[in-house]
């Protein structure tokens, strides 16, 4: 076995794959509050408030947090159904 290993050219092993995967996941998890825990609750609260005035479905409320340079942006999008429909 060892005798033949000697003539084999070295293939890149699985360690380089591990390193790449780790770098990506660790960078992602280090970003503070990439999706805050309260987001789903906030979304359902907003939905409730808006529904007092307009009938909308859950999919019409979109909430996201983005980072732009030094500050974070909480983006709220409520699309209203076409009144003609």
């Amino acid at each position, binding site marked *: 076995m*060892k005798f033949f290993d000697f003539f084999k050219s070295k*293939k*890149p092993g699985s*360690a380089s794959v591990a390193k790449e995967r*780790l770098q990506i996941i*660790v960078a992602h998890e280090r970003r503070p509050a990439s999706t805050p825990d309260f987001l789903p609750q906030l979304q359902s609260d907003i939905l409730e408030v808006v529904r007092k005035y307009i009938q909308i479905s859950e999919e019409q409320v979109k909430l996201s947090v983005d980072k732009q340079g030094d500050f974070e942006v909480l983006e709220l999008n409520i699309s209203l159904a076409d009144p003609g429909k």
Partner: protein
Amino acid sequence: MSKVVVVTSGKGGVGKTTTSAAVAAALAVRGYKTVVIDFDVGLRNLDLIMGCERRVVYDLLNVIHGEGSLNQALIKDKRVGNLYILPASQTRDKDALTMEGVSKVIEQLRESFEYIVCDSPAGIEKGAMTAMYLADEALVVTNPEISSVRDSDRIIGMLASKTKRAEEGEDPVNVHLIITRYDPDRVDGGDMLSAEDVCEILAIPFLGAVPESKLVLAASNSGIPVTMAEDCDAGTAYFDIVDRFLGEEVPYRFLDVQKKGFFSRFFGS
């Protein structure tokens, strides 16, 4: 000046207790009065690794709840004069471990010990958080393996935000990396993350690597910290680690493949 050193990792089974015992014993051998505390309430094992399981009468929780004094609970090591063990409770659950009680015990230990080594349980629950809360220094134990490195990164984040030093805005906990179960042969073959890779990802000061060694199991079988076992490569690695921790410059060992002779290169060993 006393220092509280937490040995932590996030992931279980990477060698926290082995490291706690080895480091505490090496600090004692170097002349520092040292106590090592088991924080794994309900699943204590430090007593076995230290070889004093039959001498446990009172434990950390008895002291916290006033059922025994600190002096009654401290077990003096029979091999090194400067070394003491404070065992965890085996019967109670983790909720009995209060931050207030632990703080009192550590304050008391600070009066007579130079190093207080806290062996953290795995996970990120109460036991682990209590073990790290009062730390001045942290030894993060990591295996060159993907899940261990990720968990270590989480723990490093918590050391920077969930400790007393972080909460009170003092100097941050000094965090150090120890890589255990390191196999230079497999690193060379490209199948194991190298120490360099792990250091690059975790980006904390590197104290050294402990080679994968059969002697670690042999030492734990006999209840001897690896730094007290004779002719143990892992023990030598831990002494290097402790000396670097104490501020000495020690050249790194155990990172490269041992050079093999002509014959063993061809016909295996």
